[in-house]
């Protein structure tokens, strides 16, 4: 720390005024820090407000937010902080132990399970909290009403044969182009993985040249503006400008619309469970929160957000069992 020209090291140290300044500054900062930390715990009823960190799936982020808001009304001492980022992000946070509940729109992978065990010494515990039916959307002017899973695989698969609407005996109105515009999701999203598995099988891959959009809502938005497009997204994202197709398991089987009833009765074939994961069996506020989510009140929020509840609570109070 010598000055290259004239100044010596002692001169460099010889600085009375700023030293006093910096000491007082440090003290002020320390005091500010102390008081800002001390204050919240003295507030309210005297006990600490519990915070539940909840991160993960983008598909579930609106639902998780709705749960958190509804729960804040009945349990004001608990605050649930929700963020998105994707299923992978949520599991990664669980593995690093920075989150209480990870939302995941797919099952946890065996490698992730192993990593979580190694890293935290705890076993991730799985809860199915709702179902999500993936609807296949087309433009509202498209005369197509239903498809089979095989046809979908032919449309979307890497080696599929259907690339034109005329192959499905569909003529688009108002001079729409014959070419099928395939709308898909970016290759890391839980929705993409689930659709691939449900339609193309474990070993299938999507055709190259799909439009890989970045959000569930974007898919519906694009299809509503593009007459020749077909795409998949959660059934909660439907708008009046798109049409949801009925799906049959195989040719000859009846086709079912993506409705809550058809999902619970397992007749609609493209539906998946939505998961929450905790590290070890949940305790305290986290346990209460998950119990509430699984209760009729929590499941009511599921329906309000366009997802499918575990159990259909009918008006008369009777229940229909889920799978």
């Amino acid at each position, binding site marked *: 720390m010598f000055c290259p020209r004239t100044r010596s090291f002692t001169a460099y140290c*010889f600085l009375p005024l700023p030293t006093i300044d910096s000491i007082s500054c440090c003290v002020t900062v320390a005091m500010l820090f102390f008081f800002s930390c001390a204050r919240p715990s003295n507030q309210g009823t005297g006990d600490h407000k519990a915070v539940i960190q909840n991160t993960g799936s983008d598909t579930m982020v609106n639902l998780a937010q709705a749960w958190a808001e509804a729960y804040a009304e009945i349990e004001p001492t608990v605050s649930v902080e929700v963020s998105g980022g994707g299923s*992978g992000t949520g599991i*990664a946070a669980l593995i690093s132990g920075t989150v209480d509940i990870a939302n995941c729109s797919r099952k946890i992978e065996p490698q992730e399970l192993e990593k979580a065990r190694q890293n935290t010494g705890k076993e991730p515990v799985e809860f199915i909290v709702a179902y999500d039916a993936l609807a296949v959307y087309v433009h509202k002017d498209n005369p197509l009403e239903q498809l089979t899973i095989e046809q979908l695989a032919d449309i979307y698969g890497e080696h599929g044969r259907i690339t034109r609407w005329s192959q499905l005996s569909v003529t688009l109105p108002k001079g729409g182009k014959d070419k099928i*515009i395939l709308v898909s999701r970016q290759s*890391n999203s839980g929705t993409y993985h689930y659709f691939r598995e449900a339609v193309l099988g474990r070993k299938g*891959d999507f055709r190259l040249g799909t439009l890989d959009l970045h959000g569930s809502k974007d898919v519906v938005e694009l299809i509503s503006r593009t007459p020749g497009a077909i795409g998949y997204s959660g059934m909660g994202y439907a708008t009046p400008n798109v049409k949801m197709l009925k799906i049959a398991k195989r040719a000859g089987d009846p086709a079912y619309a993506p409705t809550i009833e058809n999902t619970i009765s397992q007749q609609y074939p493209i539906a998946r469970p939505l998961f929450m994961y905790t590290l070890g069996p949940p305790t305290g506020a986290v346990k209460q929160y998950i119990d509430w989510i699984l209760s009729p009140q929590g499941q009511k929020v599921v329906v309000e957000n366009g997802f499918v509840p575990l159990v259909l609570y009918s008006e008369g109070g009777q229940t229909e069992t889920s799978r």
Partner: protein
Amino acid sequence: MIIWRRFEHILEFAIERIIWLCGVSAILFVFGIFFFVFREGAGFLFHGFDPIEFFTSPEWYPTSQTNVRYGVLALIAGTVSVTALAMIIAVPFGLGTAIFISEFCSPRLRESLKIIIELLAAIPSVVWGFIGLTVMNPIIIKLFHAPIGLTVLNGGVILALMSVPIIVSIGEDALKAVPDDYREAGIALGATRWQLIYRVLLPAARNGLLAAALLGVGRAVGETMAVLMATGHSVRIPTSILDSVRTLTATIAAELGEAPVHSEHYQVLFIIGILLFSITFIINLTADLIIKGIRNR
């Protein structure tokens, strides 16, 4: 008094050092970023990375369960096609604007034009992307009877609009740098305005104008958000400007967020980062060398 003087000297010294640090920090940051990007990608780059597949296969299947393929040919084709179209539109348009501003404008019009063009540069790229998605998409479908409007054309036009401000401001500086003697000599020889520009100013400012165009290219290659939204984000080698494509930058933006850290996929995305870094570095270096060429003359 002596203490005060000593204090002043030290202050002087400190300020000098701080300014020196500010100057050097740019170099440190660039090398730091390059080092980081390289380190993240290096593990796979040297172990198991197949450069022949990487550069020659158009098949990009980073998350396939059975057959993972990392071919970026289609992504390179996407970046090149969108950039080329953007430059075909932006270079004549930008240089034309630069010539108009520097040679034909009244001073008042010049000032307002410059302010407005700089405003164009201040619009965030997400906004451009949104315009591409919601405004240009239906227009292109209607005008060209295309099945979809999220295409090379859409991305190219958006990128052209984004690079024009850079080309205009640097091109105008280059034209300004031509000494007035040249203009006066040209006029004295009886040249018309057009002859003056075509025969005297353009050759004299050639290097600066080329640098302007190259910096525009650099801007277009590196742009992410707007092309992510406007080009359809679809892996394919385009055969016409009405095809959807996907660019290198958009691929990183879309997939890095959910690629498991240090997985192969993650590292390949960083290798794409190295590729992009090299492309923009070469473009900017060329532009810099050309600019230097002007100064040394």
